[in-house]
């Protein structure tokens, strides 16, 4: 465990040094993420100019949900996005050999190599949205609720990570994972909607089959309604299930990897 922490620490240091070398890029990309987060909040503001609730959620409840969704997404982008996205390209070009030769678990090495500080900076903005919304709602969560919220955000991050690894692992079979980026962002759009808005087929598909709604709804509900065992267990169980599936599929795919000729 300590070994992996040291490896991750070295990767993090490398990413920070690289960011300091390209400060202009860091500034522009931070701004890009900030703009897109503002777009999501603007949508909420515009809708609530014309209605008082959406699926039983008030304006600031909705902002808390959107803030939670953005927080999970920023963590994913900050800690894993670049590495996982490059994995698809590396498998196609044969550069994935580099990870096979490293001293550790290949999935860990391949998916944690790069950090994106611009996304991590913006996670503070997403957290501010959550705190601001909670204050507007007059919420005063205790230590236990905040800890549970953090735990469920972590579970959400695990689920997003697993879905992305699963999607990009398709490259072992298809030799190209183009379109995965857009597909992932489309699916995360669902995480900004309240669970109560889903009815019929969409309820089955996006709430029960794909865990794209529960990832943000479960942590948000902890702050809004306190500890709910059902939601917490549901999300934790899903995180374990999807992570196991990602590990399984990644390693099955790895068997098919044939260096530059794959």
């Amino acid at each position, binding site marked *: 465990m300590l070994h992996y922490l040291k490896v991750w620490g070295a990767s993090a240091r490398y990413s920070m040094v690289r960011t300091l070398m390209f400060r202009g890029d860091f500034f522009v990309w931070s*701004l890009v993420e900030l703009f897109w987060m503002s777009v999501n909040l603007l949508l909420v503001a515009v809708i609530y100019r014309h209605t008082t609730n959406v699926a039983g959620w008030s304006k600031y409840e909705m902002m808390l949900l959107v803030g939670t969704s953005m927080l999970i997404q920023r963590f994913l982008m900050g800690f894993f996005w670049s590495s996982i996205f490059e994995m698809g390209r590396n498998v196609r070009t044969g550069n994935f050999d580099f990870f096979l030769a490293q001293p550790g678990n290949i999935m860990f090495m391949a998916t944690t190599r790069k950090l994106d500080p611009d996304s991590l900076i913006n996670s503070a903005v997403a957290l501010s949205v959550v705190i601001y919304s909670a204050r507007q709602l007059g919420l005063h969560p205790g230590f236990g609720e905040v800890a549970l919220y953090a735990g469920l955000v972590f579970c959400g991050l695990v689920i997003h990570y697993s879905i992305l690894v699963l999607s990009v692992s398709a490259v072992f079979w298809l030799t190209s994972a183009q*379109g995965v980026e857009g597909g992932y962002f489309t699916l995360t*759009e669902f995480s900004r909607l309240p669970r109560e808005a889903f009815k019929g087929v969409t309820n089955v598909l996006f709430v029960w089959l794909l865990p794209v709604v529960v990832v943000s709804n479960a942590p948000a509900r902890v702050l809004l309604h306190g500890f709910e065992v059902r939601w917490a267990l549901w999300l934790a169980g899903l995180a374990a299930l999807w992570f196991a599936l990602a590990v399984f599929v990644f390693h099955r795919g790895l068997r098919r990897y044939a260096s530059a000729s794959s």
Partner: protein
Amino acid sequence: MRAAFEKYRQAFLVGLQSNIVYRWNFAVRGFFSLFHLAVVFILWGAAFAGTDSIGGFDLRQTLTYFVTLLVLQFFISAFNEDYQISEEIRNGLINQFLLKPINYFLYRFSIFVAARLVSGALILLPLIGALPVIHDSLSFPSEPWRLGVALPALAMSALIQFSIAYCFGMLTFWFLEIQGFVILSMAVEAVLGGQIFPLDLMPEPIFRAAQYLPFYYQMYFPGAILTGRLGLADALQGLAIQAVWVAVLLVANQILWARGLRRHTAVGG
């Protein structure tokens, strides 16, 4: 004139062939767009649960607006033309155009038209598949003038979208990496182009101000004409402003090209 037309017709045909190669990419993108449409239906369906009208329009009119915009996006939006132009400048591929009697803007525009024909045709397939489900949620106005006004509006929207992408591509003469600028601009265009929400739902002064920006004419304007969100007088006034923006952007394209070429260095044969 005929020779010039033939030149760009050939560029169009080459563009058509090369884009048909990427038909699966467009098809996948079209498929995922249906998920985006599902988000729109769920969100606005929930927003309309407690009210019959938002901004003077009912749920069916609002959903029709978003479906129309989705289709228009595949027919008139610039997808990755800015990147393609940027790559051609960075890799020196534009050198060949400097030595031939061919206008680079018209060459790229011919390829853009071909690409949108392919992507437009491919979005219709999943949409036809989804039609039995969404049919009851659609409500188009019946006034015939809308089609007459929408056609020139659509043509000019395509020109505006391509021109903006072309301008960003031209930035490569000054900057090594334009991806950040492009995605930053996409956020602005998505909001002020009405892709996130209909612009008429914004406060009146902001909506009025948006009408003087080019982004308004990218998607919202033709979409609003086709879905009944704009009256005839507003549509005609909009066409005039849109024409001014087309002219401004075409001039900006030429200036950037001429200025950029002064900085360009062609190496090798």
